[in-house]
């Protein structure tokens, strides 16, 4: 039995249900793996911990991973399973505000953690929507402060994952119908979201481990798609403080908005489209002002995926 340490991108909430589903159902164990799963503190942090060897595999924003690779030549991380086929990055504002289109963000204040993936990718969003990014003012706050600041009018907008913003705002009493959301996926073509990430050399040395993990995860994900309530139950076993209905809504939103997209229905779960990946790479390069252009093969390696038949969804 092989020990495998896995880090999530963020807190133990509904979007991480497939990982726990696979654990509870014994799918990892069936593939000879003894998996431990820890919460994460943002994609950037997860990427760092995987690169440093603290974790073998993890879940995180593929764009953050690309940035890491570009800035640390020789430290190759690679995505092996695309989970959020449609990126959940977004800007959220209150309907009651004067912001009706992305262009209206000029002169306004957006609150977000410094490392928030959506904030870091904002230059790409700005370019796609002809926003003068220099006219947007950012307020750096940590995760727990973001939604309260919007609700209290201390910020005009927030950046973040759609399913995080909507549901966090609901918890502090702001209805979804009072929100306007600008998803990045609407205006930026080719962008991807969170993937399962590992070190290239780890995968090369342990192909069977990575393959086994992905197969188990794939089964877990399909179970969750079939029975989201069971997925939420698996999460709630670890996070006793989470709210069942809210997490169920969060999970459904994640699945419908980011996982079960058109591409997935055509290609199956986990896989990326080479042309989208290529444009993704160039979007990231200009957004982060990266020094090098990454080769698509160094960003995503499809060889560890389960067979296409297993990845098929309706």
């Amino acid at each position, binding site marked *: 039995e092989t020990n495998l340490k896995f880090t999530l991108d963020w*807190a133990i909430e509904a979007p991480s249900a497939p990982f726990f589903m696979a654990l509870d159902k014994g799918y990892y164990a069936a593939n000879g793996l003894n998996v431990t799963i820890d919460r994460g*503190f943002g994609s950037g942090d997860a990427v*760092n*911990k995987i690169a440093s060897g603290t974790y073998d595999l993890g879940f995180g924003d593929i764009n953050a991973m690309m940035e890491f690779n570009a800035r640390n030549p020789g430290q190759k991380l690679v995505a092996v399973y695309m989970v959020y086929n449609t990126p959940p990055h977004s800007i959220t504002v209150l309907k009651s505000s004067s912001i009706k289109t992305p262009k209206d963000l000029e002169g306004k204040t957006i609150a977000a953690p410094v490392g928030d993936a959506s904030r870091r990718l904002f230059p790409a969003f700005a370019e796609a929507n002809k926003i003068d990014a220099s006219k947007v003012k950012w307020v750096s706050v940590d995760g*727990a402060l973001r939604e309260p600041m919007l609700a209290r009018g201390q910020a005009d907008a927030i950046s973040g994952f759609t399913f995080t913003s909507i549901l966090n705002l609901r918890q502090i009493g702001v209805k979804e119908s009072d929100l306007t959301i600008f998803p990045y996926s609407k205006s930026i073509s080719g962008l991807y979201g969170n993937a399962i990430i590992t070190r290239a050399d780890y995968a090369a040395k342990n192909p069977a481990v990575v393959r086994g993990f992905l197969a188990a995860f794939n089964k877990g994900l399909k179970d969750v798609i079939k029975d989201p309530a069971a997925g939420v139950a698996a999460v709630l076993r670890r996070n*006793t*403080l989470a709210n069942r209905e809210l997490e169920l809504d969060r999970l459904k939103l994640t699945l419908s908005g980011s996982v079960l997209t058109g591409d997935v229905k055509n290609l199956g779960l986990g896989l990326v489209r080479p042309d989208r990946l290529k444009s993704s790479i160039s979007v990231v390069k200009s957004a982060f002002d990266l020094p090098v252009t990454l080769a698509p093969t160094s960003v995503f390696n499809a060889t560890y995926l389960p067979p296409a038949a297993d990845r098929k969804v309706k």
Partner: protein
Amino acid sequence: MTAEAGTNGTMTVSTPSALGLTLRNLLPPTLSILAFFALWELTCRVFQIKPFILPTPSASFAALIQYAPAIREHALQTLFTTLAGFGLAVLAGVALGALVGLNRTAYRALYPLLIGFNAVPKAALVPVLVIWFGVGTLPAIITAFLISFFPIVVNVATGLATVEPEPRDVLRALGATPWEVFKKVSLPRTLPYFFASLKVAVTLAFVGSIISELSASNRGIGVMMNQASSSFQVPLVFGGVLLVSFMGIALYALFAGLEQRLTGWAYRGEHD
């Protein structure tokens, strides 16, 4: 003279009732703590502060009680890492404090380094600790240790360096070893300041455990507060805050008794 005392009664013993003494010790803190909570509760109610901004203490206690079983485990974990880190801090703090306090060159060489080290937010070091020691109990213990040893060093060093030479000379003249001089003069003379530093250090040890748990653990009050905060259960976050406070106060009460017994002599000039 022995006979004298018995016969003409120049010495009498008056023991104040144990109950009276305990009341006098316990009444002021009880009142002040109750007053504090009353004020907090009132502020929240009068200004109708929303719970996600500042919950009432009653709501916080209610949240604590509601999740009591889950919380017990977290609390024990935090208590354990805190005590472990604090224990190490006391050992290392006394040793380093003795070195710095008894040797002026060591003082000059080490103080700037220690100051520099302590100006660094320990939260910035947690990621490094996690890379080296993995997620879990160890980084929390180390963080608690790192954050709490410096106040002990400073006070032990200051205490030792300011011991008057006269009582030390008494011991030295008697052929006492340096260790005996340390034990019988420097140490008792330094105790009031050592205990003062413990009060600071124990609170910092809690802070250390919790900041480490906030970013690198699966158990502990920090984890619970994190979970509660990311699901916007702010009353529970403050419940965690209260829980940590009470554990801090309990530990303080524990060594306040010891302090009174060992350092009472130093407080002879105190007003009542």
